[in-house]
C-alpha cells in the first residue's frame, strides 16, 4: 500500500526539475535584463549629465568672458575702435532699451539671437520674458568672442551668445522699492559703500537715457546671460547679476584738506577757482554721464583738534579772491556760498591715517602703474587718455610740468607740485608723510576736474600717525588750474578691479 503511494507520488513529481530550471532561468534572465536596462539608463544618465555639465561649463565660460571683458583694463575690453560705446563708462548704467551681445558661432554656423523667426540661430526669447518686449524692439550691438574656436586647432568654449543688459526690477523679479510695481524702465544700482549695501533704483533721466546713480557710490547692476548649446543636444541658459567693485571714493568738497593744522595759500590769478558745483569749469565729458550730484563745498576741512582750519584757509585767501571759492551750502534763494569753506565728513575709508593707509595699499594693489621714487609726467603711462583713465600710484614726489593732462586716479605719497598748463581729470590723492605739500604755480586754462584730497598720515620717519597731521596746500601761482568738482570724473577715475557677482541663476531655454 505504502509502496504504491510512493510510486504514484514520484510519478506526479516528474518534470518539476524542468519547471524549476525554467523558473530559475527566467529569474536569471529577468535579472540579466534588468541589469542591461539599468546599465543603459545609467549610460543615458551619464550621457545626459555629461551634456548638461558640458553645456553648463560652456555657458559659464561665456559669462566669465563677458565679465572679464567688461573691465576697461582688460586687453580685450568690449569698447574698442569698432564699438567705442559698447559699454558705458564706469559708474554709468545702460539705458533700458539697450542690449549687447557677444556672439560665438562654431565654424560655418550662424548665431543670431535677435532673429526670433528662426529656431536654428539660437533666438533670445528669454529677453521678452524679462523685459516685457521682444529683443527686436531694443537697440542692440554685437561683438564676437575672442576664443580661438574659429581657428580650429584649440577649441574654445561652445557657448552661442552672451547678452549684457541693465538689470531692472522686472528682469530680476525683485521689487526693490516695495511699491508692488516691478519697474522695467529704470536701471538698478548697488551701493556697496552704504551702511547696509543694497540694491536701489536709479534716478530716471528720460526715455532712452540711462538712469543716474542715486548715491555717489552706487554702481549700476548689469545682467549677464549666456546660452550654450553643445553637440548632442545639451543646452544651458545661465545668468549673473553683476556690479562694478571700485574703491567707493566720494568727496564732500572739490578740495578736501583733512588734518590737524591746514596751511593754505590761495592763488593770485583771477581765473583760478575752487568750485563745488558738479560739472563746473570746462571738463571733457564722460560718455553717458551727466554731472547731477548735489553741490559740495569748494574747500572742505575737518576740525581736528583745537585749531580752526576754516579760519586757516580763509586767512590764506586773498581779499579780492574770496568769491573764487564757490559751493555749498546753497541759500534758500539758490545763491551759492562764497567763500565756500566748510567742515566736512569724509567717507569711512578716508577718516583716519590707518584707513587712508589701507586705501592707498588697496589702490596700489589694483594700480595700472606704481612708480617707486620721484616721478614726473614722463613716467606716466602713455596709454592714459580721456577714454582710458588709469590708476597710478607715485610712491614719492610727483612734479607735473608743461601742458600735461592726466586721466584717472592718481595717488602721490610725497609732495605734489605742478606748474604750467597742467591738469588732471579724475581723483588726486596726496596722502603721505609729514612733508606732504601741494604746490601749484600754473597758468593757462587747464583744470583739475573731479576731486582732490591732501592729507598727512605719516610722520617724517614714515611712521603712521595716530591722527591726521598738518597738510599744506600752496598755490603760489595761479592761472586757470582751478579745482572743479565733477562726479562723473570721480566715478570714471575708479576703474573697477572686477565685476562682483550679486546673483546667479539657471533659466529654462525656449528656442
Amino acid at each position, binding site marked *: 500500500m505504502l509502496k504504491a503511494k510512493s510510486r504514484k507520488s514520484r510519478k506526479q513529481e516528474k518534470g518539476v526539475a524542468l519547471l524549476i530550471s525554467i523558473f530559475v532561468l527566467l529569474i536569471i534572465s529577468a535579472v540579466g535584463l534588468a541589469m542591461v536596462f539599468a546599465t543603459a539608463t545609467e549610460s543615458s544618465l551619464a550621457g545626459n549629465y555629461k551634456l548638461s555639465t558640458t553645456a553648463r561649463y560652456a555657458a559659464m565660460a561665456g559669462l566669465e568672458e563677458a565679465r572679464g571683458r567688461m573691465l576697461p583694463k582688460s586687453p580685450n575690453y568690449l569698447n574698442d575702435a569698432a564699438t567705442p560705446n559698447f559699454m558705458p563708462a564706469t559708474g554709468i548704467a545702460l539705458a533700458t532699451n539697450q542690449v549687447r551681445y557677444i556672439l560665438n558661432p562654431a565654424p560655418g554656423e550662424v548665431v543670431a539671437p535677435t532673429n526670433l523667426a528662426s529656431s536654428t540661430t539660437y533666438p533670445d526669447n528669454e529677453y521678452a520674458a524679462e523685459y516685457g518686449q521682444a529683443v527686436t524692439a531694443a537697440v542692440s550691438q554685437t561683438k564676437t568672442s575672442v576664443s580661438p574656436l574659429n581657428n580650429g586647432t584649440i577649441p574654445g568654449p561652445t557657448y552661442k551668445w552672451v547678452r549684457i543688459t541693465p538689470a531692472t526690477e522686472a528682469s530680476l523679479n525683485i521689487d526693490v522699492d516695495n511699491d508692488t510695481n516691478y519697474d522695467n524702465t529704470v536701471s538698478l544700482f548697488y551701493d556697496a559703500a552704504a551702511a547696509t549695501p543694497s540694491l536701489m533704483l536709479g534716478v530716471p533721466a528720460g526715455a532712452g537715457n540711462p538712469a543716474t546713480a542715486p548715491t555717489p557710490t552706487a554702481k549700476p547692476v548689469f545682467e549677464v546671460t549666456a546660452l550654450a548649446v553643445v553637440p548632442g543636444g545639451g543646452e544651458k541658459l545661465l545668468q549673473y547679476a553683476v556690479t562694478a567693485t571700485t574703491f567707493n571714493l566720494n568727496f564732500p568738497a572739490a578740495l578736501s584738506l583733512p588734518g590737524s593744522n591746514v596751511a593754505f595759500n*590761495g*592763488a*593770485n*590769478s*583771477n*581765473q583760478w577757482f575752487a568750485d563745488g558745483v558738479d*560739472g563746473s*569749469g*570746462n571738463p571733457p*565729458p564722460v560718455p553717458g554721464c*551727466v554731472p547731477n550730484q548735489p553741490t559740495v563745498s569748494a574747500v572742505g576741512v575737518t576740525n581736528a583738534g583745537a585749531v*580752526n582750519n*576754516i*579760519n586757516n584757509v*580763509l*586767512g*590764506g*585767501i*586773498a*581779499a*579780492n*579772491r*574770496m*568769491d573764487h571759492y564757490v559751493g555749498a551750502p546753497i541759500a534758500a534763494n539758490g545763491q551759492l556760498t*562764497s*567763500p565756500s569753506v566748510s567742515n566736512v565728513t569724509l567717507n569711512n575709508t578716508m577718516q583716519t591715517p590707518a584707513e587712508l593707509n589701507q586705501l592707498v595699499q588697496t589702490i596700489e594693489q589694483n594700480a595700472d602703474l606704481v612708480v617707486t621714487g620721484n616721478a614726473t609726467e614722463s613716467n606716466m603711462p602713455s596709454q592714459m587718455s580721456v577714454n582710458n583713465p588709469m590708476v597710478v600710484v607715485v610712491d614719492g614726489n610727483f612734479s607735473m610740468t608743461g601742458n600735461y593732462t592726466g586721466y584717472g586716479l592718481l595717488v602721490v605719497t610725497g609732495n605734489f607740485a605742478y606748474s604750467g598748463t597742467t591738469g588732471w581729470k579724475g581723483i588726486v590723492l596726496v596722502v603721505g608723510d609729514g612733508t606732504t605739500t601741494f604746490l601749484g604755480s600754473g*597758468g*593757462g*586754462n587747464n583744470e583739475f576736474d573731479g576731486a582732490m584730497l591732501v592729507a598727512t598720515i605719516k610722520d617724517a620717519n614714515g611712521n603712521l600717525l595716530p591722527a591726521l597731521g598738518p597738510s599744506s596746500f600752496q598755490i603760489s601761482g*595761479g*592761472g*586757470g588750474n582751478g579745482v572743479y568738482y565733477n562726479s562723473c570724473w570721480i566715478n570714471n577715475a575708479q576703474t573697477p578691479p572686477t565685476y562682483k557677482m550679486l546673483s546667479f541663476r539657471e533659466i529654462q531655454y525656449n528656442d
Partner: protein
Amino acid sequence: MDTIAQKTIWASLLVLSFGLTGKATLAQVATPRPTPVSEKVTDPPKAAPAKPHKVWTDDDVTTLRTPADQYAAQKAAQEEAAAAKAKAETAKSTTAPANYPEGVKPAHAALSDPKSTEEANKMIAWENRDLDAQADYLRQMQECASNSSGSQRDHCLTEKARMEGVMAKTQQEVKALKTQKAELEKPKPQP
C-alpha cells in the same frame, strides 16, 4: 602881521621896479632883507644862514595868494578829490565783500598795491598773461557754443559769460595797477 604885509608890498614894488616878470617866489618874498634876484642867485647860501629861519603857516601863505592862486589851489584840490574817489571806486570794484570771520586776519589783496614800479610791472605782466589765457578760453567757449547744441551749448555759453566777467574784473585790476604804478613813478617831494 602888518609888518609882514608891508614888507610884502615893498618887496613886490621892488621886484616890479627892476622890471622883472612879477613871478616873485615865496622864498624871495620871505627874505627879510629884499635883495636883487641876480644877487640872490649868485650867492644864496650866504644869505640864508645869516637870518633866523621863518616858519610859514598856511594862514601866512593864504594872505599871499592872489585870486588866481586860490583858483589854482581849488582846482588842484578838486582834482585830487576826484582822483581819490576814482581810486576808492576801483578798490571797491576789485575787492570782494569782506567775508572774513572774526579772528581771521584779512589777507592782502592779490595783484594789488605794489610797493615799487618793478613790483607793479611784475603784477601787470602777470595780469596780462592771465588775460591772454582768458581770451584763449573765451575763444574756446565761443567755438564750443558754435559747434555744439543742447546742454553742451548752454554750458559753453554759461562758461563764456563767466569768463567774460572774470576778464572784465582782470582788466579793472590792470587799470588799477597802472594807476598805482603811475603814482609810484611820480617824483616824491623832497624832505
